[in-house]
């Protein structure tokens, strides 16, 4: 119990760098004024002073003590302001909140990571952690999909992963113009799941992306032979307080902010309207 600490107060944080990733996504490199640690998959609340705050899952390596990175799509009032931030601006953060990915469980197992769209942000952080565990995993598989090559978050970095010898990787986009130079698959992410080099009986899969992508990916994996309890999903609802009190992110009997945002699928599959 964090007795009498103030969970609503923010930590003063410096913007070290702002990187434009795609026409709609920027990555902030942040330096909190006090030591700040997180587990991959946990999220933070980022405050633009005087504007408001919004939840984001860090996209950087949890082992990186120098800075914290968050990749943010411009979709609303707060993210609009975040996109106007510049180097040396001051913001606030709270957290980390929630339960991250159960890395310990993955030791000795086949692990399939499937990311879509802006879901690459938490997934990149997870992949850094999994790369660091490489000798301890039986097999690491990555499948990534996006709308088009222009919107492909971390495109250079992720396409560079195709050169990693310990990684089975396939990438896809829904549509690609010829001039984009896209060399990989074209089609929905579900079209690159048929050749997963794992035996579903003992493998784990982690899925993060837009709801529609997570829904069809989940159904596809179950069709392939994965069991519900082998699937981990990131359910990002309207997380506000981060501590399971404000009520906004309720998902059945859980709050996404404290019981998630990463959920094992069997714990949430019977909740009505989970994909909405």
């Amino acid at each position, binding site marked *: *119990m*964090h*007795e*009498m*600490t*103030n*969970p*609503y*107060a*923010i*930590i*003063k944080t410096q913007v070290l760098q702002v990187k434009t990733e795609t026409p709609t996504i920027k990555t902030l490199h942040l330096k909190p*004024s006090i030591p700040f640690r997180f587990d991959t998959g946990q999220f933070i609340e980022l*405050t633009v*002073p*005087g*504007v*408001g*705050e*919004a939840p984001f899952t860090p996209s950087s390596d949890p082992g990186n003590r120098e800075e914290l990175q968050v990749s943010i*799509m411009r*979709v*609303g009032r*707060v*993210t609009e302001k975040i996109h106007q931030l510049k180097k040396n601006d*001051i913001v*606030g953060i709270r957290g980390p909140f929630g339960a991250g990915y159960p890395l310990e469980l993955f030791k000795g197992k086949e692990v399939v990571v499937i990311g879509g769209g802006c879901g690459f942000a938490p997934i990149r952080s997870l992949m850094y952690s999994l790369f660091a565990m490489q000798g301890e995993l039986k097999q690491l598989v990555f499948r990534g999909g996006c709308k088009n090559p222009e919107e492909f978050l971390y495109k250079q970095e992720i396409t560079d992963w195709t050169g990693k010898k310990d990684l089975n990787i396939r990438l896809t986009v829904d549509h690609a113009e010829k001039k984009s130079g896209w060399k990989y698959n074209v089609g929905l992410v579900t079209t690159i799941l048929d050749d997963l080099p794992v035996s579903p009986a003992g493998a784990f899969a982690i899925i993060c992306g837009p*709801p529609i992508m997570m829904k069809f990916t989940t159904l596809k994996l179950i069709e392939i032979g994965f069991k519900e309890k082998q699937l981990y999903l990131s359910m*990002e*609802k*309207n997380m*506000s*307080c981060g*501590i*399971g*009190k*404000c*009520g*906004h*992110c*309720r998902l*059945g*009997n859980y709050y996404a902010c*404290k019981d998630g945002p990463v959920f094992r699928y069997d714990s949430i599959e019977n909740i*009505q*309207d989970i994909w*909405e």
Partner: protein
Amino acid sequence: MYFLPEQNLRALVTRLQKDYTVYLPEKKNNKRYYTTDAGNGTSYTVAEVRACEPLKAFFFKARQKVAAGYDAAMPPTEAKPLCIVGAKACDLKGFKVEDYVFLNGDFSDPFYRRARQNNLIISADCSMAIDTCFCLALGIKPFPEDNYDCNLSQIDGGFLLESGSEKGARLMENNRDLLREGTAAQKKQRSEQRTHIQNEVRKNIKKYEIPSEEHLKGRVKKNYSYAFWNPEAENCVECGACNTICPTCHCFLLYDQGDKRAMERLRVWDSCMLKRFARVAGGANPRPELWMRLRNRFEKKFDFFPQVLGLNACTGCGRCISACPAKIDIRKVLGRLAAHA
């Protein structure tokens, strides 16, 4: 059990005011409102029935400054702890839900914790039922059984005073000079009154055909359709009054104001009936329709809390019935839920 003569209540309140900010119910236009002035000239109504404001409002405030700038410390709260006199059993059940939400888990809410830790609750038996009272249907009696420090039962000439905590017992010992021993006749009167008032609530339950709790188990999930909820939600104007007036509703919004030089974060009551409540950035909304949000309100109270806390998050106080401009009646909704197995 002690007897507090009517004329000594004011003296007791005056003593309490040294250490506490004391609130007592005052009657205006046939309704009861908590006031700090009562006991200093205004007349107060300790018994009768619940006040208009839910008890939660003292501890989970409608608007609380919870952070300022980058300061990790808690902004200051009231100098003196709260003493609430005349809280009713329905509101005390509200504590079970609010305490669970704000004190349980890895993080507690330091503002709620501070207010609750130091508070003094001097509750009171109901001495009447109004038309909207139906506490017995939710397993609550119209007199406090737990969650109080001292309880007052109004009888002829004053109150029987019973302690419900060590703090309450100490209070009684420290103010022994204002008290007399309660007599057997006084205890008998209290017991008769308690029976009488329960019968009054039972009349309401019968009149409005309000089901008991065992007939509500699992019913929201079984009645999840548009056909069930839309007729109820049709007249809703999304004012959120049912949420704000409810002694168990706990949802809030963190709201930032000021600029980068003087930022303040407020924690304000929110309402799950409002369209943007669960909406995420980008516009996706799990509950875009009003009937879904009304269903969610009942699901939270009669499905979520029974599963996570083991009790329905309704106290039968009836405030939402009086507050709703659209005349949405929880008694009728519960009746329909129970009828549709």
